[in-house]
Each structure stands twice: as C-alpha cells, then as structure tokens.
C-alpha cells in the first residue's frame, strides 16, 4: 500500500465557518510532504484533525488502511502518529531527561506499571540519554525544560517526537520563532530523519527555501480547500497556486529553490 495516510472528503466547521472543506489528502509512505498555504488556510486545523485533537464534522481518516476517524489522541499516537506543535509543547517543570523519558516510556509500551522492573527503568534511562545526544542537547539532561533557550526547546520537542518512534511525523512549523542562525541545525535534524527512511513526514512550513529543499510532494491549502498537490517544482508553477498563495511575492526564492 503506497499511502500511509488518507483523508476522504474531510471537513470541519466551527459554527458557521468552514475551516476545512472536503479535503482528500494522500500521504505517500516514506516521503516528505509539505503543506503550504497562507495564514488561516487551515494547515494547523488539518493537523489537529489528523492527530485527533479535534473531531471532523464530515469525512474519514485512514491510517495504514484502517479507519481512525473515531480514535482518541493517545490511541492514534500508539498506532504511530506523532506530532509536534507550532507553539513549543513540552513539560516545562520536568528536566530534559524526564521529558524524553516520558516519550520513551510510551514507545516501550510501559503505560501502567506502578512498580516497574529496575532493568526496564535503567534501559529507558539509557535510551533517553542516547536520544539527548542525538539531538545535540548533551550536558543539559538535568536542566528544567522551561529554562532552555527557545531553539533548544524546539530540539527537545523533536527529540521527544523521535523517541516516540512513530512511523508518521507531523511537524507543525518546526522553525517557528527560531532565529536565522539556528535554522540550519533544525534543518539538519529533519534531513537526518528523512535520510534514515524509516519515517513518513508531513511538514507545515512557511520558509519556501526549506520547503523546496526538503519536499518530495507539495500540498497547497487555501481557505480550507486542497488547491493542488504533487511534484513541488510543478506545483509552484501552477497559476492558481501563484495567485492564491504566492502572489508573486515569493517568485525570487522559488527560482533559487
């Protein structure tokens, strides 16, 4: 099966306002798909629908062939959908190590052991330390997450997501609020994940150079509707996309991308 995730005429409305309209999305396994669109196009809402934070008014979501529309957030996470949030979303009063250990505890299916075995806990501890090294946060294990610099928080969030070992990663603007100098580090982390080939990644991102550099597929969302999807180079030449989103503003960066 080529598509790891599919939506069928997915719609959601808040009151009178249709935020997502009849979206039929197909995400190819092992590929990186970027979702672009102007502010308010419904990108994050779409993510919330996919990860289960909100329920659709209409339509279905299929993950690995089975209908997950009615599943709760934790159950979707257990099936293999991990997500990061646009606003950094970590446990502020826990240390970096504890933050990561929570993700590892979940991925090793250690949910309810009130008195876990020592070997198990040691194992999780070691795994957490490895994950911290992997995301370049070594030496910060015992720092409270709230005391990290913003860029480090984003790294921590990515590390938690990876430690969860889900097949599908939904990354909601991983570079939001990050200084220009720190972007290459985040970019490198995402490239590394992609190169490993174990993951399917869906990315929401505004930085067009980054999108063009990383994406295998590009999806354009406009006013809650799926405007176009396909090969990035062709999509951005699409006239509708040009007028709807790019509006000529980004033409320069597109040429270089």
């Amino acid at each position, binding site marked *: 099966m080529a598509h790891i995730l599919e939506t069928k005429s997915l719609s959601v409305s808040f009151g009178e306002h249709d935020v997502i309209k009849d979206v039929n999305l197909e995400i190819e396994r092992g590929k990186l798909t970027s979702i672009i669109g102007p502010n308010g196009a419904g990108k994050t809402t779409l993510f919330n629908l996919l990860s289960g934070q909100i329920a659709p008014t209409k339509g279905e979501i299929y993950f690995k062939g089975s209908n997950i529309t009615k599943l709760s957030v934790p*159950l979707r996470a257990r099936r293999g959908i991990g997500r990061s949030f646009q606003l950094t979303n970590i446990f502020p009063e826990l240390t970096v190590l504890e933050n990561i250990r*929570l993700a590892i*505890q979940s*991925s090793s299916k250690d949910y309810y052991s*009130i*008195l876990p075995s020592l070997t198990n806990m040691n194992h999780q*501890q070691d795994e957490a330390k490895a994950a911290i090294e992997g995301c370049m946060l070594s030496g910060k294990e015992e720092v409270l997450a709230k005391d990290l610099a913003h860029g480090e928080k984003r790294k921590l969030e990515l590390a938690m997501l990876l430690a969860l070992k889900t097949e599908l990663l939904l990354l909601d603007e991983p570079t939001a609020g990050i200084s220009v100098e720190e972007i290459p580090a985040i970019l490198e982390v995402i490239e590394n994940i992609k190169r490993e080939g174990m993951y399917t990644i869906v990315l929401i991102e505004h930085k067009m150079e980054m999108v063009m550099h990383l994406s295998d597929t590009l999806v354009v969302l406009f006013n809650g509707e799926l405007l176009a999807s396909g090969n990035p180079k062709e999509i951005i030449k699409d006239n509708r996309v040009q007028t709807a989103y790019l509006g000529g503003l980004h033409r320069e960066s597109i040429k270089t991308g």
Partner: protein
Amino acid sequence: MRGVFSKVPLYWGLAILLFMLMFPFVNDTRSTLILLTQIFIFAIFAMSFDILLGYTGIVSFGHCMFFGIGAYSTAIIFNKLDATMPNFLIGLLIGIFLSALVSYLIGLLSLRLKSHFYAMLTLAVSQLFLVLAEKWRGLTHGGDGFTFSVPDIFKDRTSFYYITLISMAIVFILLKLITELSTGRVLKAISQNEDRAEALGYKTLHYKLIASVTAGVAASFSGALYAISLRFINTNVFSIEVTLDALLMTMIGGLGTLAGAIAGAGIIEFLRHYLSELAMTYPIFERWTIILGILYIVVLLGFPSGLAGVIKRLTLRNGRKGRKNREAGRAA
C-alpha cells in the same frame, strides 16, 4: 535507578524514622504521644491529598468524604460487632473498598472533562455523605455520633503510636514509589501539560483515575486510624474543615512533595495544639483558627512552593556557594 533514589534524601528519612521510633523511650507523656499520633494520621491524609493536587493537578473540595468513609466503616463495625483485630481488618477493607468505588465513579464522571468538575462533584458528593451520616441514625446515631471500644492494642497509647508511625512510613514509601516511577512521571506530566501527554500516547483519564483511587484509598485508611484514635465518631469527619486541613497541610509543606505533606501535618497539628493551650492564658488565642488563616495567606503570598520550596532554595544556594568556594580554592 540511582537517579531515582538519589533524589530522595533517604538517610534523612531513615534518621527521622529512627528518632520517632526511639521517641517514646525519651518522652512518654500522654499528651505528646497523642499529639504525635494525630500528626501521623493527618500526615497520611495530607499525603493522599497531595497525590491529587500536588502530583496530578486535580482539585478536590470533598476529600473529607474518603476520610469519613474510612472512619465510619471502622467505627460502625466496632460498634455493631466485637472490638477484635479481624473486625478491624473487615472495617478497614470495607472503607477502602467503598472509597475506591466512590473515587472511581466520581473520577469516571468528571475527570474526562479538563476542568473543575471534579472539585464540584467531590464537594457535592461529600455533602451527600454528610447528610447520609446525619439521617441514617440507626447506623450512625446522627450528628451526636457514638463511642465504641477498640482492640486493646489500639488502646495502649504507645503501641498505637507505633502502629500509626509505621503505617505512615509504609504509606509514604508506597506513594513515593508510585510517584517517582513510571506512573508517577506520567501524573506529573499530566499536571503540567495534559494535551502533550495525550499526544505522547498516554490515556490521561486512566492516570487521573489511578490518582483519584489511590488518594481515596489512602484517605480512607487515615480516616479509620483517626476514628480509632478518638474511639468516638460524629459527622464532623465529613465537614469541609477536614478537606481544608488537608489543603492547608499540603500547601504549607509544599505541593508535590510527600515529605512536605508530613511536615505540613506536623506544623498544623502542633500549632493547633499549642495555640489552643495558649488560649488558657491569653484569651486572644481562643481564635487560633484566625492565626492559621493568616499563616495560610502568608504562605500563599510569600512561599507558594511551601516549606519544601524554601528548603530546596536554601540547599541550592548552599550548593552553589560550595561549588564556588571549591572553584575559588582550586583557582588559588
């Protein structure tokens, strides 16, 4: 694992336990032993409240109901049957079972909603129990309450002192293990960021239920010991003051630290005892609850993380100073 236990000042705990074990040999005046017994019993109650508020971030306005359920179960069994140890166990188990059931049902109904419904529902149900205790006169003798006799081992102040002390130590160790290991971590995570915990694959409702039932069972246990210590029971155990006591004790000791709850119970019970004694000489202390109220305000404004927070800050500062001194020494 080393990491887990290095956080617990194990030696301090052992030293204090040892001291308390030796204490009756040093001072066995009746009033002191009774006071300490009360402290141990309320420490268990405060710790159970801390599991809810301090670790999981669940607010309860009716925690007294579990205390009352435990107290009444034991008292009624002793009243209706003989005062023997097997009957004590039966009463205790009935109390624990009822508390577990009630806390589970209330949790199931209200913890799904990420809001204050648990607080409201516990308040309502605890008032329901108060009314029940007042009206079911055949069983409870209404608001006047009743006295009952207890097994001899509970009558002796020294042996009851040891029973409550060891009970407190056991409850402390059990709760400490639960809160420091896997499940406890998730509880702490939920109190800080419930959505994130869900996105990591944790069914947060289950964890909140675990916290609710654990707290209910521990509170019921302390209630049973409380009834035995008085050998008398009335509807006061279901009053809102009992819940407020638990809140005050955990706040003063420091939320989310079980040892803090014990210290808080000690401070409050100690103050209550000595302030009411002072009232004999200074009439102003007739109103000692006002002093507790002022203390509460001072703690909230000045030391929101309680006694535990103050100690932590002091040791951190000392640690830093020590490190600086060492570094300075090395530089020289």
